[in-house]
């Protein structure tokens, strides 16, 4: 179950909306932040809050890039594979990160810290090649810069949320 506090916040936001469905994305993000990803349980909970069927919510959950229906690491690395980043070395950034983390695109490290996802143009073409980690943008990326970022995140990380 969710914290009562969060549930009440969501309920009051939904009550203020023109229609409950207007709050769909906010509710999914809130549940995702709470559970680490949008689990089946979270999806059903969200559907109840929004007066939708789980299937209706699933239709939206799977449509969007930043709603995770599978477990992800504490840090989700969205590597931009837009055309500007492609020109400026997206492939070598992806190869370097895969090698450093020991995972392929779409996978999560065994310590539960990092998930690697290729992502449509994130809108940081002036900082290309670029990536986004938990909402924060980094670029232009070089192997040295990537090492620094990973080391800093490892040091900052609290106990892994979903070690598996």
């Amino acid at each position: 179950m969710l914290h009562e506090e969060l549930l009440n916040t969501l309920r009051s936001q939904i009550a203020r909306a023109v229609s409950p469905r207007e709050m769909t994305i906010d509710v999914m993000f809130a549940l995702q932040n709470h559970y680490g990803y949008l689990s089946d349980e979270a999806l059903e909970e969200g559907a109840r809050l929004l007066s939708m069927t789980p299937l209706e919510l699933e239709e939206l959950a799977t449509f969007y890039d930043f709603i995770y229906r599978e477990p992800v690491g504490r840090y989700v690395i969205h590597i931009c594979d837009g055309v500007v980043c492609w020109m400026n070395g997206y492939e070598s950034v992806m190869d370097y990160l895969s090698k450093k983390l020991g995972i392929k695109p779409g996978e999560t490290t065994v310590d539960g810290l990092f998930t690697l996802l290729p992502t449509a143009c994130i809108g940081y073409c002036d900082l290309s090649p670029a990536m986004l980690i938990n909402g924060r943008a980094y670029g232009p990326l070089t192997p040295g810069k990537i090492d620094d970022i990973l080391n800093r995140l490892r040091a900052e990380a609290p106990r892994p949320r979903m070690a598996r």
Partner: protein
Amino acid sequence: MYPQVIFENRKPNRIATIDEYRQSGGYQALTMALQKYSPKEVQQVVIDANLQGRGGAGFPAGLKWKSVADNFPFPRYIISNIDEYEPGTFKDRVMTHTDPHMIIEGMIIAGYAVSGEKGIIFVRPSYENSALILEREIRIAREAGYLGKHILGSNFSFDLVVHRSGGRYICGEGTAQINAIQGKRPHPVQSPIRSTERGLWDKPTVLNNMETLVNVPHIVRHGAEWFKGLAKTKTSAGTKLYCVSGRVNRPGCFELPMGVRLGEIIDEYAGGMLPGHEFKTCLPGGASTYYLQKKFYDVEMDFDSLKKAANRLGTGAIIVFDQKTCLVGATLNLLDFFVRESCGFCTPCREALPFIRDLVRRIEEGEGKEEFIPMIRRMSQHTWKSYCAFSPGATMPVTSLLDNFPEEVHEHISQRKCPFKGRQ
């Protein structure tokens, strides 16, 4: 240095405060509009100023507002967005990090012009910072009396909210965005009824690009003639935010007169080509435009001039390619993007784009045949039957590759490999 209107308060690494915005004349236009002008008069000055929509289509903003007829129902909505999923485009992000109150004032005046009562700013997840900035500054504007009930003691009430998106290219399409905000699956709607008559919650809704809206306070304050005088060309008006990315020394977002020459933007403002790199082509307005031939290097960057050059200004996002970059490879990357981002709702887009992508991939991988070329052209034609403009837009790079750089395609086919691989 050209006059800076939108970027007047631009500072390195800092956002302008409400006080700095006010010192530069901010919120004077709102006061003027509410005290001196009727909504119709605000519409008229924006029509006179020839403010063309900056999102790509270039439709006159004032005329869009005017299409909300007097007898249309209430409440009415204004929607703008920081969604810009169009590859190469990042001007909205820069604007929110420069002078957020200019956005807020622009939306309030637009709201006044159509007697709207609520504005919605739709923000993509990768711009969460912009969402937080806007939420904070909207609160500040409300405390200052610019938002809420009876703004500045007038009869006009208006409020603004930030709406977060889950992140998809198609949400940039107007009717899809309206669906997204309502929590429906965000696919475009083909409807004879315009959003300005029946949009969000079936009520009159005006969608304006954010760059369009930030010009509104300046037009109200300084007048239509002043605004037209900012442009370099007769048929255009105002300044434009050009985003330059790719093989240049200083990628970035620059405010320059509408109609400034492409070569000047690249050479003077973006610092020219990277050392050892030579200009081959660019997409002049984001991914959904045509590869530009080198002979148009000095084209005037406005809606009409690019149309005459058989191209589109789009969002004004200039993606620069050099002679060492394979255009077949670049086109394949763009098609991968469009295939993935197709909402899949209507058949011409869902079926034709992967078909084209697979043919281009085979050409890039050395398995291409000359007969693929007419097949790609035929399939591209089908996309014009899609519900929305994004699908034909998706085929613009590939059709211009065939039209403007055929030798590169033929080379791939005859050599049975990508001639650029290993060349760098």
